[in-house]
């Protein structure tokens, strides 16, 4: 179906970037192939080249490049357009931005039918509804008139898939199709993709996470720095990875416990009977929590479960409707900000996206320096998080995602806090980088005895790092206890659903 030999993609813009440097592979009819690699490895560019969408300044060359039996090397824009949507459908990461936010779901799906002249004006509405039914969107007649932002993350992604399959393509290219989703929704979307495959569609999956694709893919291509470093059928890759990078990916996907033997110390923070009401919606109720020195507490739940509100309450960014927060033995809620300020430095935050949490006009030196006593040298702190002096004068944009999060950790540990609240600190990172940041956090706990409240929708991450876990659902804690107990004998059905959704590598080694 697809045969590529020595594919090279070079971006000739202001800077010349060799994104793909000689890649060869084939995809057979009905196969499911996955390309795995970290951001910047060239995996997305490779996939998009297959439909001629490598990018505006991309220069594509290849020894052999056949799609559906035709040599596409001399393809004009017209020829590509005929392939797109009809032969191959493309599914991108986040439907909130991958579907046009200003158009209804029905218009977006209908556009494919219209472009390729499928059906006529009268029967298109029915076709659109049938497509939505095919991807298991309930009440399709209502959904067609809705906008992406009115749908939940899962329904949105299904609508995006419906638009990708509207032209009846034989090949589906899914570029990180589940990365922006909660674990349970991710599992549902993967099931849907498996279903598409069962109907005979060929799948090309792109992901940074080996665990996500391992259940679906027949074959895996591992990419790094624009080259395929290893390829083979999924089982072989998982069991007998030869390349060190592949091994790293396998390990990151399998998870690794980062526990401690130290006993927790005195109480650092305490929340009692917290309740938060916005209008007529109670977003947090009956929330109790005690965090001790040197403890890592995981707080898990899906978007909308109230976990971010809990973080804001503990951090003193919003006042609880009732209940109270104490930090280092002093009242932290219900007191004027003036009273909180002296101990604020002892409570730090690591946000999900450091790019928006940093002032883009500040250098790393200034970002970290701000958290230190006046005139403090940022270099030792950066060294602790594994960064050299070479990043000191760079701006946040000039750092990789992993480096940026290390800077965020450096800024958080600089004032020697007793508690760090980490709000989804690794969710935006590739799994291999995730593992490094988790190692770093575990090390800091070990060295400084800093307590961590680790908020995440990803149970896998919590399992690897936390000592205790609280599971939140609809604003209340439905289950809590030591990580091992909760994971092995989940009592609440919601916890079990979350656990089932965690993508894991099921390989006997």
């Amino acid at each position, binding site marked *: 179906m697809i045969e590529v030999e020595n594919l090279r993609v070079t971006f000739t813009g202001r800077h010349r970037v060799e994104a793909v440097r000689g890649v060869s592979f084939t995809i057979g009819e009905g196969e499911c192939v996955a390309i795995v690699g970290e951001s910047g490895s060239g995996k997305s560019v490779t996939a998009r080249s297959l439909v001629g969408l490598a990018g505006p300044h991309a220069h594509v060359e290849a020894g052999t490049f056949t799609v559906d039996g035709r040599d596409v090397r001399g393809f004009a*824009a017209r020829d590509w357009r005929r392939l797109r949507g009809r032969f191959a*459908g493309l599914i991108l990461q986040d439907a909130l*931005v991958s*579907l046009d936010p*200003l158009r209804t779901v029905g218009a977006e799906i209908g556009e494919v039918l219209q472009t*390729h002249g499928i059906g006529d004006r009268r029967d298109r509405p029915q076709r659109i509804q049938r497509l939505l039914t095919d991807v298991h969107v309930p009440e399709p007649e209502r959904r067609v008139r809705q906008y992406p932002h009115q749908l939940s993350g899962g329904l949105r992604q299904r609508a*995006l898939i419906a638009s990708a399959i509207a032209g009846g393509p034989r090949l589906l290219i899914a570029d990180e199709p589940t990365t922006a989703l909660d674990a349970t929704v991710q599992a549902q979307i993967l099931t849907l993709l498996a279903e598409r495959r069962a109907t005979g569609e060929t799948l090309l999956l792109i992901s940074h996470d080996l665990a996500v694709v391992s259940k679906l893919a027949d074959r895996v291509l591992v990419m790094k720095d624009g080259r395929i470093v290893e390829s083979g059928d999924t089982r072989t890759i998982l069991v007998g990875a030869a390349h060190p990078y592949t091994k790293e990916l396998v390990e990151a996907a399998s998870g690794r416990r980062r526990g401690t033997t130290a006993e927790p110390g005195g109480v650092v923070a305490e929340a009692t009977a917290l309740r938060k009401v916005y209008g007529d919606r109670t977003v947090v109720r009956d929330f109790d929590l005690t965090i001790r020195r040197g403890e890592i507490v995981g707080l898990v739940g899906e978007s909308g479960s109230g976990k971010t509100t809990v973080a804001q309450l503990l951090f003193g960014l919003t006042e609880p409707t009732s209940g109270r927060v104490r930090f280092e033995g002093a009242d932290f809620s219900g007191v004027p900000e003036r009273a909180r300020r002296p101990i604020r430095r002892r409570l730090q935050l690591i946000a999900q996206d450091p790019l928006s949490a940093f002032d883009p006009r500040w250098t790393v030196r200034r970002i970290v320096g701000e958290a230190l006593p006046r005139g403090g040298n940022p270099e030792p702190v950066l060294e602790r998080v594994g960064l050299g002096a070479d990043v000191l004068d760079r701006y946040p944009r000039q750092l990789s995602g992993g480096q940026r999060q290390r800077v965020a950790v450096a800024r958080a540990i600089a004032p020697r806090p007793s508690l760090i609240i980490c709000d989804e600190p690794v969710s935006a990172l590739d799994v291999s980088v995730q593992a490094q940041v988790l190692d770093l956090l575990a090390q800091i706990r070990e060295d400084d005895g800093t307590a961590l409240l680790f908020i995440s929708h990803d149970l896998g991450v919590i399992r690897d790092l936390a000592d205790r876990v609280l599971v939140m659902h609809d604003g209340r804690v439905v289950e809590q206890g030591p990580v091992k107990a909760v994971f092995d004998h989940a009592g609440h059905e919601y916890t079990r659903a979350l656990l089932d959704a965690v993508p894991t590598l099921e390989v006997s080694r």
Partner: protein
Amino acid sequence: MITAIARRVASGAIVLWAAATAAYLALLAAPGDIVDAIIGDGADTPQIRSQIIAEWNLDRPAIVQYLDYLLRAAQGDLGRSYLLQRPVRDVIGEQILPTLKLAVAAAVFGVVLALILAVTTRHRWVRRVSSTAELIIVSTPPFLIGIVLLSVFSFRFGLFPVSGDRGWAGLVLPAITLGLPIAGVLAQVLRDGLDRALDEPFAVTARARGLRERAVLVRHALRHALMPAVTLLGWLSGVLIGGVVIIEQVFGRPGLGQVTLQAVGNGDMPVVLAVVVFAAAAFVLINTAADLAYLLIDPRLRRS
């Protein structure tokens, strides 16, 4: 919905009141005597003076006059022009049509030209040439553009009348003069918006459906690019209101601009006040239209 409309109307009324009051205070503080303004070049004797004071109720305290003015303005009575000795409503009514024609023609010309420029000049040198031309136009004072257009198209080629409001031909050059800077700014903003929208993931999705680049541009990106352009509608109303005064002068057109200049020069307070209130009303109207346009373009804003 009803409270939203009520709030809108109330805030509009407050803007009108504030504009009228500010203008009233400014004119009160301005040098010159109202009686002098009313007498103009006529006979000036103490009798006539006291007669005028009695007739126009000028002997009452300023605050009473002000409140009386507000009360009557609220009923639609804008008073009498000192200079022309006619109801202000008639003076404005006669002159408003040519001004509206000019403003609407300029706005339509400006917006349409901006859309055409932004959509058609996307790549390479065409884009650079167009963008440079836009910046030159924007940084040139409008009266200068008017004079250049006049000397080329009217004096040299005689294509359009030199002055006055003689049918549609007389509208062409003034509308272009007033519309060109609008087109320049809008085209820059639209082009920038298109660039950003075409970089978004939904543009990739649209291309992946097999759409032509032009269709991606018109069906998807353009709506996104319109958002920042709509924000400029408030600015646009300012340009139009300020611009017509100058343009009408340059092209010798009748209209509010001429009336305003005359009224300001002669201390004809009722007319100036009426023009200010009218400009404020136009401003409120255009900004309300902008707010509605936001809702029309972006469904995400419709929620609350």
